């Protein structure tokens, strides 16, 4: 039965793409549920009560909430926490009392034909007032509004669970008893705090436990995802057991454990967790909506026109007034104010869903109003999901609400986010104002100093956030590199020909005029810098070497004489030649022209691509130049070409005066086998030393 339903829904949904643009998935699923329920009713007399509250609250709801909590974007959530809490707590209370109170007033009118007491009305109000996270998720996921609105509505739907739980239990108890005293009201308020804070506390405890456990799982990587799921579910069950807010426990657990668990677990486990959560929450969502449809057909409701229409209208009105009033107050405290457009979307996004239905279903069967309530609840759910769900997308377009920015998190933004955090904290300290940033900074430092050491295994506990972010980026790029075949041009987000070479500080000495013989001196610090830059710049170095030949880098700042320089070079070339005779072949990776992503990827690999100088290998201490021609086998993947030492591109060919001029030409070509352009001929009169193991060493005559 269930399989059939699922299959049908997916087939139908995906085979009719146009339909999916107009109608959100949740609506279609409900329709499918209706059909299935109708079929069952035709086939048999009794429709099995599929949307059993037990099943719903214990099996169907937790995966969705865990998925939401684990991947909750913490930063925007915390930044807007005040606003979210206002909407969740005060907004829901307002909704509940407004709807309940006015319905009671309605019932007083004898023409209505209804006779419902105040407390049952308030109970109904509390059931119907809560914005439902499942419905919000389902609808908002498809409309891609900007992050702020999304987190406001979504956060509200998550946090109002505490209010709903308290009000529901309170009014249910009071309905049985029949009367309320002030003391009861006061106790109700206290119980709200206990439920909310208790739920968060339980969740946080389990979250820390999970993080602590994950510290030791380095030998059993396979069961790492299991810990995440088990601890979260236990948090939920524990909270529900004590009548605390299970949803808040689950959110707290997921949000608390995530940074530490992610630092500890393997990459594969992380992928597993992500996809399992998405899968489970998808399945749950689908089932919930289908069962909602089935349950509608099932019966057990009594239709009362006045009650139902009044409910629908009152819900809408209450929501609009509530959001408007609260925003007026909230805007006084916000830096980024909420505009009217924002308010409209927030109000319009107040969807009710299956939680309301299940709570109604949970009501005692002997409760006489139950069936009227159920009918009204279902109507409101249908109205919000169908009407509001379908029209919100065109409305968003119409009102030109800001959409989600698909911008990739760039390293510059990360650097500046951190920079700004520290800057603002500093300014607050200077002002003497213990504000937002001050406490956030204190919490971060506490986290870094104690908590991380305790919960994260090994070296990663000390890793600052910027480096972690950078490593993540590197990983992504490395994976991309491998996936794209390793050699071809990556479809990078920044198609440009800018490469590392372009940004390195230029240390090129001024191109010497032909008559000039003096090689410009490089100050020591620049020299050091050049060395470091070149060391990290594998590819371009080969070409650069012709301009920054290692011999030029060996410039001893003390030496001023050009001749001494030449002598030194000669000596080194002799040594080199001897070494070269032993290593006849150079393995040089073929340069990939114009692929900035390649060099960026190489750079991003973070490895120290150090040259091991041939001379140093042989224990030659004469040469202090770390630059040499043996490249690490890290470049194994690259095609290997052999460079004939006789070619002028040979590193041994030194043309002191020509090198600058050649640099431009050679950098275009890279290292290729080419007939030496005028090996013996050179326009410049000058020292041109060519080393060729096959020929005699031609030493210029001075």
């Amino acid at each position, binding site marked *: 039965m269930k399989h059939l339903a699922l299959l049908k829904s997916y087939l139908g949904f995906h085979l009719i793409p146009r339909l999916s643009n107009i109608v959100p998935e949740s609506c279609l699923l409900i329709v499918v549920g209706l059909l299935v329920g109708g079929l069952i009713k035709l086939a048999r007399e009794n429709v099995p009560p599929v949307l059993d509250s037990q099943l719903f609250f214990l099996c169907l709801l937790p995966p969705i909430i865990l998925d939401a909590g684990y991947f909750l974007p913490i930063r925007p959530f915390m930044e807007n926490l005040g606003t979210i809490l206002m909407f969740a707590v005060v907004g829901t209370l307002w909704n509940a009392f407004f709807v309940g109170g006015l319905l009671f007033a309605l019932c007083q009118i004898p023409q209505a034909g209804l006779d419902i007491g105040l407390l049952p009305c308030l109970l109904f109000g509390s059931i119907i007032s809560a914005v439902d996270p499942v419905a919000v998720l389902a609808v908002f996921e498809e409309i891609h509004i900007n992050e702020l609105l999304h987190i406001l509505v979504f956060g509200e739907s998550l946090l109002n669970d505490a209010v709903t739980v308290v009000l529901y239990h309170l009014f249910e108890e009071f309905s049985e008893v029949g009367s309320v005293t002030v003391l009861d009201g006061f106790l109700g308020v206290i119980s709200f705090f206990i439920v909310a804070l208790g739920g968060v506390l339980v969740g946080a405890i389990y979250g820390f436990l999970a993080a602590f456990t994950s510290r030791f799982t380095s030998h059993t990587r396979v069961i790492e995802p299991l810990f995440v799921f088990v601890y979260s579910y236990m948090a939920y069950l524990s909270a529900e057991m004590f009548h605390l807010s299970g949803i808040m426990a689950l959110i707290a657990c997921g949000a608390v454990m995530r940074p530490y668990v992610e630092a500890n677990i393997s990459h594969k486990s992380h992928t597993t967790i992500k996809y399992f959560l998405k899968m489970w929450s998808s399945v749950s969502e689908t089932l919930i909506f289908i069962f909602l449809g089935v349950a509608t057909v099932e019966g057990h409701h009594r239709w009362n026109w006045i009650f139902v229409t009044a409910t629908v209208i009152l819900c809408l009105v209450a929501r609009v007034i509530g959001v408007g009033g609260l925003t007026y107050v909230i805007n006084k405290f916000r*830096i*980024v104010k909420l505009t009217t457009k924002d308010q409209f979307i927030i109000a319009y996004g107040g969807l009710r869903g299956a939680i309301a239905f299940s709570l109604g279903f949970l009501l005692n069967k002997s409760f006489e109003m139950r069936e009227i309530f159920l009918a009204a609840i279902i109507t409101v759910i249908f109205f919000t999901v169908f009407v509001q769900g379908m029209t919100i997308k065109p409305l968003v377009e119409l009102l030109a609400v800001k959409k989600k*920015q698909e*911008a990739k998190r*760039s*390293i*510059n*933004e990360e*650097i*500046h986010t951190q*920079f*700004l955090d*520290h*800057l*603002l*904290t*500093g*300014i*607050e*300290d*200077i*002002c*003497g*104002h*213990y*504000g*937002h*940033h*001050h406490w956030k900074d204190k919490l971060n*430092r506490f986290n*870094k100093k104690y908590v991380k050491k305790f919960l994260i295994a090994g070296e990663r506990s*000390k890793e*600052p956030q*910027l*480096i972690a972010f*950078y490593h993540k*980026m590197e990983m992504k790029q490395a994976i991309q590199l491998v996936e794209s075949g390793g050699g071809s041009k990556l479809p990078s987000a*920044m198609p*440009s*020909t*800018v*490469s*590392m*070479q*372009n*940004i*390195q*500080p*230029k240390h090129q000495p001024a191109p010497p005029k032909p008559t000039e013989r003096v090689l410009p001196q490089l100050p020591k610090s620049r020299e050091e810098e050049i060395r*470091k830059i070149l060391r*990290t710049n594998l590819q*371009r170095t080969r070409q650069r070497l012709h301009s920054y030949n290692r011999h030029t880098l060996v410039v001893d700042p003390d030496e001023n004489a050009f001749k001494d320089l030449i002598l030194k070079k000669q000596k080194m070339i002799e040594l080199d030649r001897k070494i070269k005779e032993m290593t006849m072949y150079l393995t040089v990776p073929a340069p990939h022209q*114009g692929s*900035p992503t390649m060099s960026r990827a190489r*750079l*991003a690999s973070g490895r*120290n691509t150090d040259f091991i100088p041939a001379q140093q290998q042989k224990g030659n201490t004469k040469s202090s130049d770390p630059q040499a021609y043996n490249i690490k086998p890290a470049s194994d993947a690259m095609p290997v070409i052999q460079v004939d030492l006789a070619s002028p591109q040979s590193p041994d060919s030194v043309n002191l005066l020509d090198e600058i001029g050649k*640099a*431009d030409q050679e*950098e275009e070509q890279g290292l290729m086998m080419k007939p030496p352009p005028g090996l013996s001929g050179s326009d410049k009169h000058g020292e041109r030393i060519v080393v060729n193991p096959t020929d005699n060493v031609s030493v210029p005559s001075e």
Partner: protein
Amino acid sequence: MGTLQSSPAPTEYCDLSEKTGFSFEQIAVLHKRFKQLSHDEDVLRRDHFSEIPDLASNPIRAEIIEAFFDQRNFSKNGKGKVEEIGFEEFLVVMSHFRPPSQHMTNEQRENVRKEKLRFLFNMHDTDNDGTITLEEYRHVVEELLSRSGALEKETAKSIADAAMLEVASISVGHMEPNEFYEGITFDHFLKLLAGFEIDSKMSIRFLNMDTITLCK
């Protein structure tokens, strides 16, 4: 409105208020803080800032303090650094962190954005030459990582290099292999942080500052 100690007459506050956009209450409160920091003198010096205990653990403390003494932040054409500042300069620097008011035209909003980004730019560009070179950017990254305890110079350099590459790619797009990207100019900086929403991120609530008396 609290009681004002021996302080400039309200007419001076008028000028300051117009210049910086703070309200009278805010100016009064900031003035109290100024006096507290400077030990009742008329000018602030660098060592006064070093006395703030909370600031000691801030990784970019040096840059922040320097920003207060940087003449480029006082007026559009200022250059160079000063050794001591008066209350007006203090206020001008603080005004860079005012939250944007709700009723502003788009042009005003743009100006506010530019000012804040200019402030950030000046903080990075320590040698006043109008560009952020690779070396300066590296310095920024190193400072940010300096408090982590695990100062890996190589990684810091790679991060800065990658960031610089990103800037160059965004701003200039296509460069020949032997062209050289001098450094981030102010225009490139603007382009880089275009989507950053700096006007809301770089603000401090100057609303309730009576907590001043609590801390040193």
